C-alpha cells in the first residue's frame, strides 16, 4: 500500500469516527448540565437483604430533590421527597411484590432519618412473601435526570457488600441465590469514565484543548501521562480520606482546565503572519476576571473559597507564563489535563466513599473509571491529530495559525464562563 493510500485510509477512518461521535457531542452540548455548571446527578442506596426482609437506605442529595418539583420551584418539603422516593423504589420476590412495612413508633412506611447538610436519608423495610428471586427496583429521578447514576451497595444475609450501579438503562437488579450479590463489572465503571469524557460539552472542550496543544506524536504520551497522573492522584487522595468539599468544584476546575488549555495553545502558537500577542491580552483578561470572581466570592459566599479561587488564579497565571517562557518545560502545557483528571476522578471516589465502600473494592473500580476516561480522551486526541495531520498538509500555515487562534480564544471564553458560573 502506497503512502498516499495509507493517508487516505487514515483520513477516512478518522472522519468516520468523528461522524460517529458528533451526535454525542451535540447531545452533550444540549444537556442541562452542559452550561449550567451541574455535575452529573448522583444518588446512593444501600440494600440489605436478610432472608425475606430487605432494608433500603436511600441517600439523596438535597439539590437533586429539585427534580421532584417544576423547574424554578422552591425545594419541596421532606415529606414530599420521602413520598416520591417511596413511590419509585420497590422490591419483588419469587412470591410476588414485597410490601413496605410500617416501622412503628410513628415512623410509618418510610423512616425519615436525620438529614445531613447535603443529603436526605430515608429508610424503608420491605417484607417479601419469599426469600428467593429477589429483584430490586430503583426508578428515583431517572425520568427527570437521565444522566443520573445511583451508586448502590448490596448485602445479602450478612455477606460482604457488592457495588452496583443503577442507571437510566438499568433500573432493576435481580439478586442470585446465596449471599454473594453480583458486583458491577469493571467495564461498567470504565464505560462510565469514557461517557464522562464524551458526554458533556466541557469535557469535550478539554479534549479539544489538548488537541490544540499536540504538535508532535510524542505529545500524545504527555496527554496520557497528564491525565493518568491526575486520575492516580485522585485515587491517592481518596485513599487518604480526602474528597472535594463541594461537587460543583469539579465543574469549576474543568472550566479552568479548558481556559488554561486555550491560553496554553495561544502561548505555543506556531509563528504566523501576526505576532503572537493574543495570549497576553487573553491571559490578562482571564486573570482579571478570576481575581474579581475571587474577591466577589469572598464577599458573598465564603472567604476560604475565595482563597481557593485566588490560588487557582496564581497557578493558572504561572502555568501559562512558564509554558511560553522557552525554558524547556513545554510539557507543563498539559498540566491542566492533570488538574481536570484530578477533579473528575474525585467524583466517583467521593461517591464510593459515601457508601463506605472498602478500599479493596473501590480502587479497582476507580482505576477502571480512570482508565476508561484516559483512554477515550487520549484516543479522541490521537484520532483528531491524525486527521488534522493528514489534512494540514494542504492548509497554509497562516490558516492553521488562525484556526488555532480562534479555537484557543473560544476555549478561553468558554472556560472562563464555566469557571466563574460554577463557583457560585
Amino acid at each position, binding site marked *: 500500500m502506497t503512502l498516499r493510500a495509507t493517508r487516505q485510509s487514515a483520513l477516512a477512518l478518522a472522519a468516520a469516527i468523528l461522524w460517529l461521535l458528533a451526535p454525542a457531542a451535540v447531545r452533550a452540548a444540549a444537556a442541562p448540565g452542559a452550561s449550567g455548571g451541574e455535575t452529573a446527578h448522583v444518588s446512593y442506596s444501600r440494600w440489605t437483604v436478610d432472608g425475606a426482609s430487605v432494608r433500603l437506605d436511600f441517600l439523596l442529595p438535597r439539590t437533586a430533590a429539585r427534580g421532584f418539583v417544576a423547574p424554578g420551584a422552591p425545594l419541596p418539603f421532606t415529606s414530599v421527597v420521602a413520598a416520591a422516593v417511596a413511590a419509585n423504589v420497590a422490591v419483588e420476590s419469587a412470591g410476588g411484590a414485597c410490601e413496605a412495612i410500617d416501622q412503628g413508633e410513628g415512623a410509618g412506611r418510610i423512616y425519615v432519618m*436525620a438529614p445531613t447538610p447535603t443529603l436526605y436519608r430515608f429508610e424503608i423495610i420491605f417484607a417479601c412473601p419469599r426469600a428467593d428471586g429477589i429483584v430490586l427496583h430503583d426508578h428515583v429521578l431517572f425520568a427527570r435526570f437521565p444522566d443520573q447514576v445511583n451508586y448502590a451497595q448490596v448485602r445479602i444475609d450478612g455477606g460482604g457488600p457488592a457495588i452496583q450501579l443503577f442507571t437510566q438503562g438499568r433500573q432493576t437488579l435481580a439478586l442470585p441465590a446465596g449471599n454473594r450479590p453480583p458486583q458491577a463489572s469493571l467495564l461498567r465503571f470504565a464505560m462510565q469514565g469514557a461517557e464522562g469524557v464524551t458526554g458533556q460539552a466541557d469535557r469535550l472542550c478539554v479534549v479539544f484543548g489538548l488537541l490544540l496543544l499536540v504538535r508532535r506524536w510524542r505529545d500524545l504520551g504527555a496527554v496520557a501521562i497528564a491525565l493518568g497522573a491526575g486520575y492516580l492522584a485522585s485515587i491517592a487522595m481518596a485513599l487518604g480520606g480526602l474528597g472535594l468539599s463541594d461537587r460543583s468544584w469539579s465543574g469549576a476546575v474543568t472550566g479552568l482546565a479548558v481556559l488554561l488549555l486555550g491560553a496554553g495553545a495561544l502561548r505555543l502558537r506556531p509563528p504566523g503572519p501576526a505576532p503572537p500577542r493574543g495570549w497576553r491580552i487573553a491571559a490578562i483578561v482571564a486573570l482579571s476576571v478570576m481575581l474579581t470572581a475571587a474577591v466577589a466570592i469572598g464577599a458573598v459566599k465564603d472567604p476560604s473559597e475565595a482563597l481557593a479561587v485566588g490560588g487557582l488564579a*496564581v497557578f493558572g497565571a*504561572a502555568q501559562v507564563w512558564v509554558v511560553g517562557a522557552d525554558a524547556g518545560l513545554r510539557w507543563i502545557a498539559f498540566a491542566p489535563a492533570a488538574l481536570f483528571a484530578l477533579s473528575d476522578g474525585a467524583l466517583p471516589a467521593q461517591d464510593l466513599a459515601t457508601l*463506605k465502600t472498602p478500599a479493596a473494592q473501590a480502587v479497582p473500580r476507580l482505576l477502571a473509571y480512570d482508565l476508561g476516561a484516559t483512554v477515550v480522551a487520549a484516543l479522541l486526541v490521537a484520532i483528531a491529530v491524525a486527521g488534522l495531520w493528514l489534512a494540514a498538509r494542504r492548509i497554509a500555515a497562516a490558516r492553521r495559525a488562525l484556526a488555532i487562534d480562534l479555537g484557543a480564544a473560544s476555549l478561553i471564553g468558554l472556560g472562563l464562563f464555566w469557571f466563574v458560573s460554577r463557583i457560585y
Partner: protein
Amino acid sequence: MPSPTVDPAPGARAGLAGRLAPSMRTLVALALVAGLAGLGVAGAVLFRPFDRTPTAVPPGDVALVNGAPILTNDFMIEVEAVEGQPFADVAPAVRARILHEMIDEELMVQRALALDLPEQDTGVRASLVGGVKALVTAPIQAEPPTDDELRAYYAAHRGHYGTKGSMTLTDLVLHVGGSGDAPQSVSQALADAAQAAYELRSGAALDTVEQHFGMADSGKVSGVEQDFAAKAHLGAKLYAVALTLGDGQVSEPIADADGVHLLVMQHRQAPIFTDYDAVRNNVYADYALARQTPAERANLRLLRRKADIVLAPGQSE
C-alpha cells in the same frame, strides 16, 4: 565635607545590572513555586476529609448527637436548674440521668426538623414564633422598669385596673329647626327644656313631661350601658354631662346638633379603681408588653425588608 562621588563606568553599570537581573531560569523557578503554592492553597480548601463524623467530643461540649453538640455550659445550667444545687454537688448518677434526658430532647428536636414540623405543625410554629419574640425582647426585659415608670403608666391607664362603670339613663331631645310639627328656635327649645327639667326635678313623671313639652327619647341609649358604650352612643358632649349625674338627677338643657337634650339618670354605677399597690404585678406585665410590642414590630419591619415576599396574583395582605 561631602565626599566626592564617582560615576561607575558604563561597563561596570551593565555588569551590576546583569548581576542583579534575575535569569530566565530563576524567573521560571519562581513562577513554578508560585504556581505550586497556588495549587496547594486551592487544594487545601477544596479537598476535605470524606468522613466528617466526629469521633471525639470537642472541648466545651458534653456530647454530640448526630454531630450536633450539647454544650457543657447548657448541661451545667440544666443540672443546676433541675436539682436546685451547684453542679459540683450533684451526684454523677443524677448528672448522667439529666444528660440522658438532654440527648433524648436533642433526638426529638432533630426528628422534628427531619419531618419538617416547623413547616407543618401549628404548635411548633407558635413555639418558634414565641422563641423569636423572646429573643427580640430579651434586651428590653433585661432592664426592669423603675417604680416611678410603673406609677406613671398606671396613672395613664388607670381605667384598665378596676371595675368598669355603667349607667342607666334616658336621653330626651327637643328637636329644633324647620322640620317636624313644632318648629322652634334653639332659644325657645332651651327655655322649654329648662322648664321640663324643673318639672322632672319636682317629681313629674317622665311620660307626662315628654308629652307636655313635645320631647322624645333620642334612642341613643337603652337599658344598662357600660361607660365606654354610653360614650360611643351619646357622643363626647352628652357623655361628659352624664358622668356628672348621680342616681335620679336631671341635667341642665344641652344644645347639640340635633336639638336640645335633657339627660335623666336612673342609676349610675361609677367605676371603682383598684389601688396601684394591689395591681402592681398587672401594671408591670402591661408595661412590659407595651414596651415589647414596638420592638417586635421593628423586628418584623426588618425581617420584611430583608425578605423576598412574592404574592400570588389577586392576593393582598
